[in-house]
């Protein structure tokens, strides 16, 4: 039996695995990366939205672009990626068995990094096995990789970032999202993600769960109901929707079985069954490391940094860099990771109700319960000011680690400051020129430009717009509020696209002066537009 030897074996060519391999390859190691899929990149290539963070985290770059950059970097440094290669066993001696084609091949590494990611959770309800009940990840695969609409009318279960982001993508793909439900009493994901779904007119049903999927051979409808304190559905609260698709976004579980097989010490946490790991990725078995979602569910941005940390640690473990060099690199990466783990959604705040922002401003309860900030709440945030002339209105109301808007403004109108989670502040001293760079830069699509009295009695609202076909100048339609309900009639006065906006188009509509702080979305007369 032939066993091939490598210094470093990586299992999983997603953001964590590739980052680790690149980091190690830069130090002279020749790593080999196995992935069971036919394409590398893990979940990154399904992510068509712009990421949060700061420049060093590739903020405002779309996920699939980050994936392309990662692949290019891997190629540049000679990282060997073997696809359609399923690792079926990992043994404590750091030997792996891999199914490639019709053969099982054996490899042995001096260091093995497990970066196998996570899989989607399911929930059971009557009819959950009917065709038409799918995971949110499956919906993303269909839409964003294969350009297939998962269905016409969809109900989304889950208000975490996955549920919110995928709901928006379903709308972009031209599906109707009839409702977003979550058994939790409050929206779990970023408020800005919720707001962009809500203003498209998707109703949020918090404290609601699925009672039943209806249909004989496939889903034809769904019944949801309100849950009481005992998580059971309160009789009489049931609501029916005609749908052909039920999308589940109810969390992820680490795919950590290989680590368990290898004898790594495991821990059953709220976030799933994970290896007991040091921050640099070292498990309890010498030479076996873990990075990314397999060691605890987080964002792709964190997975990439964790991967780089593991890459540096393995480089040191194998003698390619000194302990001092490793420490210096880890310190640098730790700082980056630390930034991402700040704010209201920091791991330490998981499941907690944060009632005040870091600035001491009350958090919008409407945002948490309905998915949008109420008109009466919006003015208390520092990004929302009243000024003469055109100026940005930044509806960023939660402390999340993200700051591209600050650098986007060429005039210095927007300030976040040193603390990346601070709410953006709009200055009244600097003069906004209405360039719209901030609008396009905001990954949360939470920045608008407003201007009163463009003509007597009428003002303009400029909004980020990621639907196709683009409305035409002169077209008339309906302005929708933050809650997705009709505010007034609106006329499209400008449509701006530019490569630097990266597909976030700037749509300007004319509405009466007293509506410029209410109108936040536009619906053409033909109804919903789609992105593809």
């Amino acid at each position, binding site marked *: *039996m*032939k066993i091939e030897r490598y210094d470093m074996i990586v299992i999983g060519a997603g953001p964590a695995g590739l980052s680790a391999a690149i980091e190690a390859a830069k130090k002279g190691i020749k790593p080999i990366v196995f992935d*069971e899929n036919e394409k590398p990149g893990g979940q990154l290539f399904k992510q068509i939205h712009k990421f949060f963070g700061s420049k060093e985290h590739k903020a405002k770059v779309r996920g699939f672009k980050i994936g392309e950059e990662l692949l290019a970097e891997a190629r540049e440094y000679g990282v060997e990626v073997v696809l359609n290669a*399923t*690792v*079926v*066993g*990992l043994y404590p001696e750091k030997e792996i*068995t891999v*199914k490639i084609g*019709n*053969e*099982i091949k*054996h490899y042995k590494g001096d260091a093995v990094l497990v970066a196998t990611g996570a*899989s989607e*959770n*399911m*929930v*059971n*309800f*009557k009819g*959950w*096995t009917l065709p038409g009940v799918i995971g949110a990840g499956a919906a993303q695969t269909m839409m964003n990789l294969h350009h297939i609409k998962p269905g016409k009318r969809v109900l989304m279960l889950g208000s975490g970032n996955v549920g919110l982001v995928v709901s928006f993508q379903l709308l972009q793909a031209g599906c109707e999202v009839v409702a977003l439900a979550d058994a939790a009493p409050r929206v779990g994901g970023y408020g800005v993600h919720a707001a962009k779904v809500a203003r498209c007119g998707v109703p949020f049903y918090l404290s609601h769960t699925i009672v039943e999927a209806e249909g004989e051979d496939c889903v034809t409808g769904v019944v949801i109901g309100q849950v009481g304190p005992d998580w059971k559905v309160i009789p009489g609260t049931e609501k029916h929707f005609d749908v052909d698709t039920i999308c589940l976004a109810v969390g992820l*579980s680490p*795919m950590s*079985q*290989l680590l*368990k*097989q290898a004898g790594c010490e*495991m821990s*059953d*946490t709220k976030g799933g*069954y994970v290896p007991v790991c040091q921050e640099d990725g070292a498990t309890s078995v010498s030479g076996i490391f873990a990075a990314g979602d397999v060691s605890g569910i987080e964002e792709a941005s964190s997975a990439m940094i964790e991967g780089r940390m593991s890459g540096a640690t393995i480089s040191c473990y194998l003698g390619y860099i000194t302990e001092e060099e490793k420490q210096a690199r880890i310190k640098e990466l730790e700082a980056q990771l630390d930034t991402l783990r700040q704010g209201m959604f920091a791991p330490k705040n998981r499941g907690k109700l944060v009632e005040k922002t870091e600035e001491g401003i009350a958090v919008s309860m409407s945002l948490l319960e309905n998915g949008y900030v109420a008109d009466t709440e919006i003015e208390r945030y520092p990004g929302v000011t009243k000024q003469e002339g055109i100026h940005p209105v930044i509806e960023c109301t939660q402390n999340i680690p993200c700051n591209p808007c600050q650098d986007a403004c060429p005039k210095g109108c927007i300030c976040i400051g040193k603390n990346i989670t601070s709410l953006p502040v709009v200055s009244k001293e600097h003069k906004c020129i209405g360039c719209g760079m901030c609008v396009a830069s905001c990954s949360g699509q939470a920045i608008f430009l407003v201007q009163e009295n463009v003509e007597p009695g009428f003002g303009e609202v400029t909004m980020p717009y990621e639907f196709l076909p683009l409305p035409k100048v002169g077209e008339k339609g309906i302005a929708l509020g933050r809650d997705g309900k009709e505010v007034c009639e609106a006329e499209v006065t400008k449509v701006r696209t530019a490569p630097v906006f990266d597909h976030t188009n700037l749509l300007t509509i004319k509405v009466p002066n007293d509506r410029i702080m209410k109108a936040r979305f536009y619906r053409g007369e033909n109804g919903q537009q789609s992105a593809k």
Partner: protein
Amino acid sequence: MMDIQEKLKEIGPYVEAEDDGMLVCRCEEVTKGEIRKAVHEGIFTIEELRRYLRSGMGLCQGQTCGKLVKGIVARELGVAPSEVEPASSRAPMRPIEMEILAEDGGVAHE
């Protein structure tokens, strides 16, 4: 090691529930009722349950139902899911044709 007889006394007899007919492990077609009944027959760990009912032994290897099965067992036992002993992990970690598995190591690679 928990005393099985004591625990069985503590959790009381199996009582039929309305949703017992619901499939939980779709690969091996195991229902919620079968899992609940098994607990009352003294099957307290995921390892035993997998051998007894084949739940989590199909195509997806418990990737879909693993967490759900654990939840049902935990509820039946009146413990937290983290207290339910998980199954061991062993190769092959993914479904694999016997033909391929059988040739592993048996054919000389020159």
